[in-house]
Each structure stands twice: as structure tokens, then as C-alpha cells.
């Protein structure tokens, strides 16, 4: 029976091979050209094939040689951290830098196991003032400080 002995390498290999396949499939729309006059599809095709080959070797080798297990993934903290940043990007232009800073800080802090509401709020307000001072007053970035209501 085939057993995955090195899960880290196995899945890394599978990932590489999949991306390689995607590059070839998606890249098939682009003109290949000839070796002397390469079209936009030529280089991606080479890279895709290399990636499939390397991914295949890595995955197959992982069936023979033992390796460590993939460490547990705390999905929640990943989602909260990245989510807080994405949310900031979505709202900063309408809500303003001050409020979106506080929201980002409190939300991002909640990903830690040592989260404390009050502390996060204080840090958020402090950093909001700092960010406004550095980026809007100091570096003169074009960002609103307070909420703006666009019409139309």
C-alpha cells in the first residue's frame, strides 16, 4: 500500500504540480511562437513543465522517505489577522484613517490568546493618533481622517 511518509513534502509537491498544470492550461490561450521568436506563451509553458516535473519528484520522494507531520494550523487566527487587514483596506477611504485604525487594532488583537479589550482599545486610539500624525500630517498622504459620505 502506498503511504505518505513525508506529508510536508508530499503536499508541497502536489501544490507545485497543480500550479504548473494551471500555468500550462491557462497559458494555452497565449501564442507559443517559435524558439527564435517566442510568443507570450513560450516561457510560461517551460516554467509550467519544470514545475510539474519538480513537483512530481518531490511528491514521489515523499512516499519513500519519512518526514515530520504538517504542524497544526490555527485557521481562526490566520483568518482574523488577514481579515482585519482586508477590512481596513475596504473601509479606510469611507470611514477615515482614525476609525479604521482602531477597528484594525482591536480586531487584529483579538487573534491573540492574551487578548484584552481595554488594552487593545487604548493601543488603537494611540496608534490612530500616531498614524494620522505620521501619514497624513507628516507624509501628506491623500487619506481622509474622519468618515466621509460620498453621494452618487
Amino acid at each position, binding site marked *: 500500500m502506498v503511504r505518505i511518509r513525508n506529508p*510536508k*513534502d508530499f*503536499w*508541497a509537491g502536489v501544490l*507545485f504540480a497543480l*500550479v504548473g498544470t494551471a*500555468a500550462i492550461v491557462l*497559458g494555452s490561450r*497565449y*501564442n507559443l511562437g*517559435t*524558439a*527564435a521568436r*517566442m*510568443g*507570450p506563451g*513560450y*516561457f*510560461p509553458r517551460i*516554467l*509550467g513543465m*519544470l*514545475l510539474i516535473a*519538480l513537483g512530481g519528484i*518531490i511528491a514521489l520522494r515523499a512516499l519513500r522517505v519519512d518526514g515530520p507531520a*504538517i*504542524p*497544526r*494550523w490555527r485557521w481562526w*487566527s*490566520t483568518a482574523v*489577522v*488577514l481579515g*482585519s*487587514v*482586508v477590512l*481596513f*483596506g*475596504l473601509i*479606510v477611504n469611507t470611514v477615515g*484613517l482614525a476609525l479604521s*485604525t482602531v477597528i*484594525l*487594532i482591536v480586531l*487584529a*488583537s483579538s487573534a*491573540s490568546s*492574551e*487578548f*484584552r479589550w481595554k*488594552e*487593545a482599545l487604548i*493601543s488603537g486610539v494611540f*496608534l490612530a493618533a500616531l*498614524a494620522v500624525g505620521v*501619514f497624513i500630517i507628516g*507624509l501628506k*498622504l*491623500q*487619506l481622509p481622517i474622519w468618515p466621509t459620505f460620498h453621494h452618487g
Partner: protein
Amino acid sequence: MELLNHLALGFSVALTPINLLYALIGSLLGTLIGVLPGIGPVATIAMLLPTTYALQPVSALIMLAGIYYGAQYGGSTTSILINMPGETSSAVTCLDGHQMARQGEAGAALATAALASFFAGCVATVFIAAVSVPLSELALKFGPAEYFSLMVLGLIGAVVLAHGSLIKAIAMIILGLLLGIVGTDVNSGVARFDFGIPELTDGIGVVSVAMGLFGFAEIITNLESQETRERLSSKVKGLWISKAQFKAAWPAVLRGTGLGSFLGLLPGGGAMLASFASYAVEKKVAKDPSRFGKGAIEGVAGPEAANNAGAQTSFIPLLTLGIPENAVMAMMVGAMTIHNIQPGPQVMTSNPGLFWGLIASMWVGNLMLVVLNLPLIGIWIKLLTVPYRILYPAILLFCAIGVYTISNASFDVMQTAAFGFLGVLFLKLECEPAPLLLGFVLGPMMEENLRRAMLLSRGDPTVFVTRPLSAVMLAAAVLLIVVIALPNIRRKREEAFQEE
């Protein structure tokens, strides 16, 4: 003397008030992030790149370079005082530096580290100035075939000297190359792999890739592991070294500087490799190797000189050949591209003020660091008492503002978050992100040179092996892979990286 003329030109640029200011800001920020865990020079440069749009290119590069060598100073401070390297390149300084601190010699260890770094920085600056002219003259003779082979050699060299699985690192390079060519193809005008997203026709931003892979991913994995921090073990007093200590340290400084300057030149080299190699050398040449790990001053002086020398000479391949050899240099390529400077041998002739100004600024920055660092140690230590749960949201905020301001659009922020997710995935699967970043910045250049070489040879791929220089470089790349794949060298390499 041509060299003196060049340096004089450099200093006339580096010593203008505005460039002095940016050298100071860069060095201080570098020290700060060198002290703080959880954020390294790559993520910091990514964070600051967008704010340098409005600056003169030379000021921007001076500031960003300061971050890299400043981080070497900051990293050694925390290694010595609390046994926690802020940067991987100062990890070996923990071994003896922290022992010295425990024995009440913290002041001597810090002074040794700072002076060794400064000495190495001075030598490396002159070294860069001396080596750059002949190297870029050589590079100007390169045709597209030579360039392509040089990039292959550079990329392979970078992963051979890095740690982790070789084959996975090569796969990461190719993944990086693939990501690098997303966007409009310069020759045909076709938008490749844009998934119908208009923002992607300009390609993926280097800031998003670097910040996601190096900044966000690091924070997320840090959150998963519980933090343990050692308290400051001793008061710092008497920042000076005794005559006996000086006598023991200076040969180590000389060796470290030489070794670091040389290793910084190699692809994949730079600060980290230099410091590890220097520690090994010091242990070998010592009369009594058993002192190492118990507070031997050579164990601080050598690696500290080496990491600073290596950090600086790693600019040489970038400035003369246009080839970045580590992730920080990849960010410098990004910075130059943003300011419409194509990295390569022509920078020296077309932009001499920028070239020599940047080199001279490294000496200026080093001087500022040695003068400012010691008095500021108290502040850095205070900053370390800020718990990580307060620190990381602040880092995220500055990252988010940095990315958002690239084009004032939420797309860049989402793209960065996507790379953050990928970065965590790569860390879980033990895939090094640095090779990907190198491939990413070299992708378009590599394709362009491949195309040109093949066009000139009328589609004959043997051009890469029939042109002698190109053949030598490709042979060297193959040789590197073969050598590393040999079983007993592989074992040695694994041992060498074990101490990390």
C-alpha cells in the same frame, strides 16, 4: 586616483542634509526592527517602499539600505542582552555575547560588537568601491545569453547556500518566475494570467509579495507559538573594553571582515552566512576552543564584523550585475524599478551620483550607528518590554497603510493578504519564501534575455553552451547542484545549518 574621485563624488551626494537625514532614518528604523522580533528587513523595506515614491531615488535607496545594515546592529544588541536574536544573522552572537553579559561584561560585549561592525563597515565600503568598477565593466560585455546564464547561476547559488531542501527551493524559484511574468507581456502586449482583473495587467506588486510572505505570515506563525522571553539579565555599565579584550578581539575582527566581505559577494550570501562561517572559523583557529559558548570575546567580534561586512558587500552583485542575491536585495531591485532605474552595470555610468552616493552613505550610516547605538540602547531595551500582543497589531497597521497607499486601492491590500495566506501555507509545508521572491523579481528580466538570446541565435538553444562565458556559468550552476546532492556534503550542510 580614480577610486578617490568616485568616493569624493559619493560623499558629496551622501553628505547633503537631506540624504544625511534619510541615512539616519534608515539606520534608526533598521536598528529598531533589528531589536524587535517578528519583523525583519524584507517586510520593513516592503512597508516603506510606497512612502518613497515622492523622494529622490538616491534618498530612497539610502534609507532602504540603512534598514538592512542597521538591522545588523540592532540584532546584536538583543542577542547580547537578552539572548534573543532580533535577526537570524545575529543568532551566533547569542552564543558568546549573552554569556559575556551574564558574567557582567555586557558593556564590553556591546562595545566589541559595535566597533567590530563599524570597522567591517568601513572596510566593506572601500571594498565595494574598488570591486565595482571592474565588475561592471565585465558585465557590460555580457550579451543576452550570458545574462540569462548569470541569472540561472545566481538563482541556483542563492538556494544552494540557503538552508532547507534544495529541490523545493528550486521549485519555489520557478513559482516565483511564474508569478513575476503575470501581467502585460512587453513584446506582444498580451495580458498574461490576469484572470480578467484589470489591476493584474500591471503585474503583481513586489510590495504585496514581500509583505505577505515575510510580514503577515511571520506574524501569524508567531501567534501560534507561545512567546517566551528572557528578562534582561544584567545592567549595562561601562561601555568599553579592556586592553586584554581588545588584544583578543582584533585578529577575530580582521578575519571576520575578510570572510564576510568575500561571502557577501556570493549568491545566497550576505549577513547570515557570513556570521555563521566566521564563528566556525574562530572556533577552529582558537588555541582553546572550549572557551567558546562560555563568553569568548572572539565569538562576538568575528561574527559581528562578518555579518556587517557581508550585509554591505551583498550590494555588489546588485549594483554591478543587477542580480539580487538575497531577499533584501530583491527588495532593492523593487525599489530601483519603482524609481525607473533598471538595475545593472549601466547604473554606474548613467547614474554615478546615485551609485557612489549610495556606497558612501553606507559608511556615513555606519558612523551614525556606532555613535548613536550605544547611547540609545536603553530605549531599545524599553521597547522590548512591550508585549508581542500589542506589537503585532501595530506592525499590521503600518503594513496595511503602506500597501494601501501604493495606489490608494483596496485591491493591493487584498492581494497582500492572499500572499500572507500563501506564506503561512509555505511555512507549514517548509518551503522557503526567499527563493520565490528572488525568482519573482528576476522573472521578466530572465524571459527577456532568453528571448533575445534565442532570437540572435535564430532559435538555436546551443548558444548558451557555445558562448564560453555563458557555458562556464551554466557549468558552475550544474556543478553546484551536483556537489550539494552528494550524500556526505549534504550531511555537512545540514550540520552547518543545524545551529540556527
